[in-house]
């Protein structure tokens, strides 16, 4: 089993954490960056005592497990990993344990949180909730292993890619600015769903908070920063997608303007759900003109974030630090009432500068 798990570790687990470093960091920042430990404990106690809240939490865990499962299936279906189907030659019991271990390694984000919940549950004598958490974790591990086992026994990628949305897309010619959006639908549907849920919930929260006190438009602008921060995972995915599958586009005779326009259009289309949410939840006293500025501001932040990916030799740690401090900087600028349209113009200008300087020099570093 050791050799089997080792190969799963090298091909799937490491790749998952490498590709999702930003996603996990964003979750950690959001979960632990704004709340104190005592507040976390209070929330956990509340969840443990409420059946509906714990059910809601399980749904989130299931969505996360689904994201992990889809990622693994995608790797299993890729041609470069076809050798993994040799796993069938191992005894079924050993193989199943290795697959359970694989799934367990991939759901560490929710599993570690569940451990904290169990500890607090024991202290509070909430045994029913503890049993439910343990059962949920076992279910997530076994269900994942069953899905992988099913795929290993049926190595037929065509059947997997035969999805209704994909079939609909396939009926029409796909323009280049939709290549990445189709990639998200086809390869990262859970990431797409979770990110959009997160950013739309942030905007709904901000819009509902606005009339409860004497807030001004700066509150909505802060929401715009969070929306852009949520899209960081897309920026990294876009860069990965482009360097892996579309490196030949650097040989195509596009002007800088054509290339920039295509990126801008793709991100604008990705922001459509947020635009709809903003328009539908527009607080009284806020004009549609401001909503337009806010969208331009968020788009400019995402646009800049996309283009800094082209700078070579920036480690994940360094990138995260820069992202964090940039977020703080923008927060301060907004609090000091710097107009967001001015910030947007600066962001777009910086993005174009970075693109012109680094795009053709960029190389994907694994």
């Amino acid at each position, binding site marked *: 089993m050791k050799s089997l798990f080792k190969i799963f570790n090298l091909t799937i687990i490491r790749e998952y954490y490498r590709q999702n470093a930003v996603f996990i960091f964003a979750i950690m920042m959001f979960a632990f960056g704004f709340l104190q430990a005592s507040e976390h404990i209070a929330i956990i106690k509340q969840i443990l005592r409420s059946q509906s809240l714990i059910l809601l939490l399980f749904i989130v865990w299931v969505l996360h497990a689904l994201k992990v499962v889809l990622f693994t299936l995608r790797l299993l279906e890729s041609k470069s990993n076809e050798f993994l189907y040799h796993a069938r030659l191992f005894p079924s019991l050993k193989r199943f344990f290795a697959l359970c271990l694989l799934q367990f390694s991939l759901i560490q984000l929710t599993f570690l949180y569940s451990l904290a919940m169990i500890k607090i549950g024991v202290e509070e004598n909430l045994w029913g909730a503890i049993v439910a958490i343990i059962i949920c974790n076992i279910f997530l591990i076994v269900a994942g292993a069953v899905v992988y086992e099913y795929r290993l026994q049926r190595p037929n990628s065509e059947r997997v*890619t035969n999805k209704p949305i994909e079939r609909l897309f396939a009926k029409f010619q*796909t323009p280049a600015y939709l*290549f990445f959006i189709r990639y998200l639908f086809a390869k990262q549907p859970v990431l797409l769903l979770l990110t959009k849920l997160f950013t739309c919930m942030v905007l709904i929260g901000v819009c509902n908070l606005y009339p409860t006190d004497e807030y001004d438009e700066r509150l909505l602008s802060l929401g715009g920063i969070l929306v852009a921060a949520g899209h960081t995972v897309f920026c990294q995915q876009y860069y990965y997608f482009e360097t*892996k*599958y579309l490196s*030949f586009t650097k*040989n195509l*005779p596009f002007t800088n303007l054509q290339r920039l326009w295509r990126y801008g259009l793709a991100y604008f289309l990705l922001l459509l759900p947020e635009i709809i949410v903003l328009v539908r939840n527009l607080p009284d006293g806020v004009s549609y003109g401001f909503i337009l500025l806010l969208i331009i501001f968020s788009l400019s932040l995402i646009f800049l974030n996309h283009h800094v990916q082209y700078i070579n030799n920036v480690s994940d740690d360094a990138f995260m630090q820069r992202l964090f401090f940039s977020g703080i900087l923008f927060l301060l600028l907004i609090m000091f009432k710097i107009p967001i349209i001015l910030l947007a113009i600066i962001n777009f200008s910086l993005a174009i500068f970075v693109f012109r300087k680094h795009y053709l020099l960029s190389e994907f570093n694994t």
Partner: protein
Amino acid sequence: MLTIKNFLKSYNNHKILAVDELEIPEGIHWIKGINGSGKSTLFRSIAGILPFEGQIKLNELDIRKDAVQYRLLVNMSEAEPLYPDYLSGYDLVKFVADAKKSSGEQLTLLADSLGVSQYWKSPIGTYSSGMQKKISLLTAFLGNPKLIMLDEPLITIDDRTVEVVYGLVKSYHENHGVSFLLSSHQDFRFEKLAVKNIYTVQNQAVTKQ
């Protein structure tokens, strides 16, 4: 035609390929070299896909200063193309055709001769490696290039397509004055073509035989 000066390609400070000065005239040229010698790196650098130190010019067009004009004239087909499996071959080919300013007539003609039009509306995920290779070869002939680089053009394709590729190379060279850089690690593959020069890529350098 193609001038390479002070060329250096390295990964993580490890030198892959260095060329002090190399002039490649018009014609069909064979770039030889064993696996991993740097043929693909050279092709991808000349195509503008990989960054490098030094200077590459096609006639008087500089790869960096005249980025758009240069790329209109330099096409490439990769040895082992990797495309998004959920797109159709037509999505990709049409995208490249529009970029390279290829006429619809040229696209149809090439697709029919290579046999691509029979399957190009299906998702790439359903293609064999040979079918993907034909998509890649097709894109290299689109537009009005002056230099086409075919990296290992004959691997994975069937005998009929090999003959089609020979025919296209001959026709583009004789009728349109297009030059070719063809790479292969095998010794006998381009005997049917009027190869002008043979260059060997080895020991991190390119030498004319």
